[in-house]
Every structure is written in C-alpha cells, then in structure tokens.
C-alpha cells in the first residue's frame, strides 16, 4: 500500500535504482520495444506483433480487428451512467486481428486468483510477454482521476522482478508513454477484482505462432488483402445493417444518443444531465481512443491499408473518416462546456443544450454516407496488382 508506482528510467535494470516519473524508457527491458499507442487493446496487440518481428502498426491492428463501432444503450448502466461505446466488444480486436492475419493465440481465464497468478508467472518464466485484461481502478500508475472500475483495460506484462510480497511486474501499458512497475498485489486485484459486466476473470492472452507474413512478402500481401476486405465489411455491416428494432447500434445509435441527450435535462435535471454528458465525452476522448472516438485511428488505418495494397480508392476514404472525426471533436468541445456549466452566462446553458442533437444528427449523416461509400469501395474489389 505504501509503495508508490515508479516509472523506470531508460537505464534501469534488475534491482537497480528506479526514478519516479521518467518519461523515456522504451528499452528499459532488453529486447523489448515499448509501443506508445492510442488505445489499449490495439496497442497491446500491435506491441506483441512488433516485438515478435511482425512489423505492423497500431492503426493496422485496430482496423483489421474491426475495432470501430458505435453504440449507446440508454438502459444499461455502467458506473451509474448509460453505456456509450465507440468501439467493438473488448477482446474482439485481438481475436480478429490474430485470426485474420494467421496468428494463432491462446486466451485463458481462471476461477482462482492463485492459479491465475501462478500461470502468469509460469508464462513469464518461459520468456513470453503476456497480455492481460484488467480493472483499471487498481493500477497504481494510472493517474487517480482516471481510475474508475472499468474492467476492459488491457496491458502487457514483460517480466517479474524480485520475490515474495515485494515482487513487482514490469508492465508495458500502451496508453502510457513509458514502462511501469506494478506491485504483485495491485496486479492481482486488477485482474480479479471486478464488479460489473465484462469481469476479466484474470484473462490473459498471447500469440502462440505467426504464419509466413513476417518472412514472405507475397504471402503477407495476399493475407493482408483478405484481412482488409473482411475487416472493412464487418465494420460497415455493424455501422449500417443492424435492423431498426435495435436503435442503439451503429449509425442509428448516434441518432439515438442525440435524442436521449436532448431529453436528459427534463428527465434527469441539469446536474445529472451534465454528469452523463461528461461521461459520453470521457468515453469518446479521455479513455484513450487516438482522438474522436477512434475515428482518427480508423482513418489512419484506411490510409495505411490503401497504400500497402496499392488501393487508392480505399486510401481516399481516409479523408471523409477524418472529417467525421472532426465533427465528433466539435461535439466534444461543445458538450464539455455544457457539462462544466458554470462559466456560461446564466440562461445560456438551456439554449445551447439544444444544439447537441443537431450536432449528432450531423455526425450520423456524415457516418452514414461514409460507411455506404466505404462498403461500395470494398465491394468494387479491385484485383490485387503485383
């Protein structure tokens, strides 16, 4: 409890001195390169792939994993807020990226914390780097305002140092810019203490084998073509094709959120409405999305995939994706001012609040056109050249 989290300095190794708050430490563990990423799960996956010699960027992992989504469930409560998410279900990015790129993997959950920790130690002793899904609240190195009981955070464990109660794990948390030490007890809690949906149950995962991508460019190109096709198809399907009886999902969900937000002040009162609005913006920006609720990282994916596949039509879809992201950022800016509520002149709040729904309608229109165009580009299926 008394142990403060410490960031490793670049030269720190073994039980050597550690410095607090040192920001540069991508090579604090020899043979491992820390990846600073926009998002936790795509970051962990890309980091695993890169460190195994498979050169792939975080946006490519996110895109091939079909990470982009939107849904707003007005009737599901997470930490007292309705659930708003800009991405697919936790775990999907890793599983999709692995299966579409021919990477085999293992995922294990545990009923007993002791067994879960022992298994982690055994894998680390084999030299494996292990991905974990954890409750972010118990991670001591996360800035306290960001520590909430959210079970869907991902990180990579590199090694265990020391023994007994003073032992620490060296973790590579891709949303942070440096490596950290995490005490054993804190990591055990983070893995096994979760009280909402998505209980991690000590989930750990790691790739077990890579097909020829890393060595044979021709195979890589063919694999990539198929992977991109599948991933774009899935994202377009999820954003556009859920039936109207499920108004919470995809582009329709954005309009649903707009209607809900418009009703919050009368239904909940101003204070609660502001609190919930702040919650939406946190899910869009603060939790680590690369900006604009993953829209920018997805735009980067379309550009990189289009370039690698010599598919200019696909790369060109990056621009409208960026434009949709920019609309989300404008919404976030406006919403944050309303959520703060105090600095506006009196009476200004109520008038401004009504601007939120048209903003989200505008976002929904942009994304409707975007994903229809993207699906059309994908369906045109140009033959792979070279």
């Amino acid at each position, binding site marked *: 409890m008394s142990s403060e989290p410490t960031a490793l300095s670049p030269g720190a190794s073994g039980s050597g001195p550690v410095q607090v708050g040192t920001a540069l430490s991508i090579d604090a563990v020899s043979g491992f390169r820390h990846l600073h*990423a926009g998002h936790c799960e795509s970051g962990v996956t890309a980091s695993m792939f890169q460190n195994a010699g498979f050169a792939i960027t975080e946006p490519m992992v996110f895109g091939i994993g079909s990470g982009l989504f939107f849904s707003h469930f007005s009737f599901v409560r997470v930490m007292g807020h309705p659930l708003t998410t800009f991405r697919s279900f936790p775990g999907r990015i890793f599983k999709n990226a692995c299966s579409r790129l021919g990477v085999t993997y293992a995922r294990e959950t545990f009923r007993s914390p002791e067994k879960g920790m022992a298994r982690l130690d055994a894998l680390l002793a084999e030299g494996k780097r292990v991905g974990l899904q954890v409750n972010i609240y118990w991670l001591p190195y996360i800035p306290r305002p960001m520590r909430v009981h959210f079970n869907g955070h991902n990180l990579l464990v590199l090694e265990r140092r020391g023994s007994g109660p003073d032992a620490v794990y060296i973790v590579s948390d891709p949303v942070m810019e440096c490596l950290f030490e995490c005490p054993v007890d804190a990591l055990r809690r983070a893995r096994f203490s979760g*009280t909402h949906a998505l209980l991690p149950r000590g989930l750990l995962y790691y790739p077990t084998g890579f097909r020829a991508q890393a060595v044979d460019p021709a195979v890589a190109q063919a694999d990539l073509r198929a992977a991109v096709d599948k991933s774009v198809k899935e994202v377009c399907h999820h954003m556009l094709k859920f039936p109207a009886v499920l108004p919470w999902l995809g582009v329709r969900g954005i309009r649903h959120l707009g209607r809900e937000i418009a009703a919050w002040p009368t239904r909940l009162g101003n204070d609660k409405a502001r609190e919930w609005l702040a919650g939406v913006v946190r899910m869009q920006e603060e939790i680590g999305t690369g900006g604009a609720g993953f829209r920018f990282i997805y735009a980067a994916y379309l550009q990189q995939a289009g370039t690698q596949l010599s598919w200019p039509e696909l790369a060109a879809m990056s621009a409208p994706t960026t434009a949709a992201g920019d609309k989300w950022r404008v919404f976030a800016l406006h919403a944050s001012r309303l959520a703060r509520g105090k600095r506006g002149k009196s009476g200004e709040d109520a008038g401004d609040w009504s601007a939120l729904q048209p903003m989200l309608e505008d976002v929904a229109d942009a994304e409707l056109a975007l994903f229809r165009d993207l699906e059309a580009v994908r369906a045109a299926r140009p033959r792979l050249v070279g």
Partner: protein
Amino acid sequence: MKIQDVPQDPGACLAGHEKLNYAVGADGQYVGVPTIGWEVETTVTQVSTAITVAQITRAWEDARAGRTSPLGYHMAVVQMDAGQLANETNKWGWQVRRHLKPAVFAGLSDEALAPYADALNIPVAKLRLVPDAPDTP
C-alpha cells in the same frame, strides 16, 4: 485533425504523462502525435472527479456523524456501492447494507471484517476508523 491542431493543454488529468492522438501531417500522411492533454478532457474529468469527491465527502460526513458505519466511508473511497462490495466479498447486498448500520458494525469481529478489509485494500484496524479528513482524488 492536423498535427498542429493536436491539443497540448496542460492539465491535471494526465498527471504529466502523455497520450497518443492520430493526426494528419503536412504531406497528408497520418502519424501518431503524443499530447499532454486536451482542455475538453480535463473539463469532463473534473466534472466526474467532482462527483466522486462529493460522494466520498458525503459518506465521510455520514460516518463521522454516526449515521453510517465506517464501512460506508471506506466503501465510498474505493468508489464501490453496497452491491459491488457484496459482489466482491461473496455476500448478499442486504448483508453489506446491514453492516452499514453503526450498531451492527460495532459488534463485528475482526474475522467478520476481514473480507471487507481485503476487498477495500486496507487493514482491519483502519476499517474500524473514520479519518480526520476524507481521502479524495
């Protein structure tokens, strides 16, 4: 978003750390750009933190005034409610809510408090006390 538009607003939210945004460079290519924070994120985090602080402070006042047991305060510090704590300790919600009553709580043995202390990550001795000031973010 262009690289020059990536916000670099100092704020308490990231505590000196950096996160990564994706933005378009002058050549039109996307790159990852580290950022120390965005005013918008700081604002919404402050809104959420203020609510957490208010909850902890209210729980502290209730415990100090003897309206609830110290368990109510320590539960609020780790941002749990009775349902969550029951889940963590394999109890029923009504059992936890009963232990929020000062008179019932005072009669509990160390053994009975141990599961709570473990779930809340504090020693049993500390669980019995309410500090002089609330521990808020």
